[in-house]
């Protein structure tokens, strides 16, 4: 546990003493919420087709999902930072196991994610007067924890498998574009073409957003959400196992 604490402390020191990271980790997804809240909500009017809620309420889960996805992407880039600084291999000789190295990084990411969740939820309530399901707050936090961990492990696979920063950045940009847009993050799926819906339903972002929407504003089918939760947990576990394997292979 001491080794994991040291790892979390190190990650926190690096990110908390650099303003750029604080912006990307905490404030960037909030920008989406403010822009969409003012612009898109007014343009679309309410209630949103098929959902019975306005766009602000619909989009709250999306902001949380983007925060989860974005923070995981930002912090998994730290594998590259460690490698470019040369310290990656030296750290593997520190008194910590390779899994502690990975767990330390993911724990720190989860802490940032939880802070982000609390800020987003508070702003959504105060600025947009969204009626939250406070009784489902523990579920919301659980979804953010499992979701962020899952995305972090997925990104870690790419960060540990490729040695080049430019390839990693390209992969993450493509993932960001494809996964976020081919999902229910920006729009409800019902009015969309059948092939698009099929692609979106196979996308783990959709699973996470459905869970988040159910946990924040109560929209969604409980059975579907339960199935998607299980699917996401399996996805996160598989990503973890593969990322751990990639880390073990480093020498």
């Amino acid at each position: 546990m001491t080794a994991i604490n040291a790892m979390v402390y190190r990650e926190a020191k690096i990110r908390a003493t650099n303003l750029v990271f604080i912006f990307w980790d905490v404030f960037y997804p909030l920008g989406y919420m403010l822009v969409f809240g003012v612009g898109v909500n007014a343009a679309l009017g309410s209630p949103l087709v098929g959902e019975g809620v306005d766009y602000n309420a619909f989009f709250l889960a999306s902001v949380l999902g983007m925060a989860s996805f974005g923070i995981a992407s930002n912090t998994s880039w730290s594998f590259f930072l460690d490698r470019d600084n040369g310290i990656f291999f030296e750290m593997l000789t520190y008194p910590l196991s390779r899994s502690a190295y990975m767990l330390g990084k993911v724990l720190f990411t989860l802490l940032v994610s939880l802070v982000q969740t609390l800020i987003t939820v508070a702003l959504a309530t105060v600025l947009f007067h969204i009626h939250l399901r406070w009784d489902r707050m523990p579920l919301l936090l659980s979804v953010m924890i499992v979701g962020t961990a899952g995305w972090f492990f997925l990104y870690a696979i790419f960060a540990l498998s490729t040695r080049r920063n430019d390839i990693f950045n390209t992969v993450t940009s493509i993932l960001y574009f494809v996964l976020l847009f081919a999902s229910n993050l920006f729009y409800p799926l019902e009015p969309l073409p059948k092939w698009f819906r099929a692609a979106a339903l196979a996308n783990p972002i959709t699973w996470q957003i459905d869970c988040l929407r159910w946990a924040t504003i109560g929209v969604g089918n409980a059975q579907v959400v339960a199935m998607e939760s299980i699917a996401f947990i399996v996805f996160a576990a598989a990503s973890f196992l593969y990322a751990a394997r990639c880390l073990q292979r480093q020498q």
Partner: protein
Amino acid sequence: MTCALEVHNIVKTFGPVRAVDGLSFAVARGTIFGLLGPNGAGKSTTLKILTTLSRPTSGTASVLGFDVVKRPLDVRQRIVSIIQETAVDLLLSVRDNLLTFARFHQVDTRTAQRRAAQVMECFRFTAEAERKVQDLSGGFRRRVQVAKAFMVETPVLFLDEFSTGMDPLLKREVMALLRNEAHRGRTIVLTTQILSEAEELCQDILIIDHGRQVARGDLSALKLLAKEVYEVSMTFDQVPESIESELQTVPTLRARVENNTLEVAFKAPDGQVLEVVTALARNRRVLRLEVNGASLEDVFLELTQEEVKS
């Protein structure tokens, strides 16, 4: 008492390449052990195995009795490894680099801060304590990296080319620190290409080439391996034009002419060294002449060149 390091017949292959090829050695506690060899000899690979970064293809290695493959965490708790490449947290300050490192080794905060102050003074970067390492020069970054080794008291310290980027003065100070650590019982394993460093520091030296042992022993034992090797330094008023062709008749290990001074190491049977020197000096004005026995560099060159020939 167990040795600090025990290596039995380790082999490490990368595809068809045998980077380490059946290496065996043991290192006593509290010694400064030098692992020497030319580029690609297998030094860093051996160090990577001993520091648990890499697994041997076959053979066993242990640090303070802990097998590097079966008990890697126990090994890591007892070592500090300063790798060849500069390795620092660029986005942290100098002080935070030291404190973070100490935290990994479970040094309590107060002790860590006291040691950080001492180490920064010793390595002469107290004025830069709060600056981020990314704003410092390459040499500075290397100093921060090496300084970390003195933040903790692990019994074994691995240093891969530790003096890279250090000015001569600081290098001497770090060497004195390393000797002091060894006196206190710490085992220090270093690799270096700068043989004068090994000559000054190491009590026990292993020379490897192509992943195999070429020679082993303390400095005097190694010098015996090259007992017919001499180093001659000769300063002329003017370097003779024919010197290069004349040297071709001598079995030289290395030769260099700089500022009218010829420095040559050669192999000659006992008693014949004066003949070589006389031949080189004949009919010339020699301002200074120095004849020495073999240095570690000569031993190293002779042994590794023999290896190449064989």
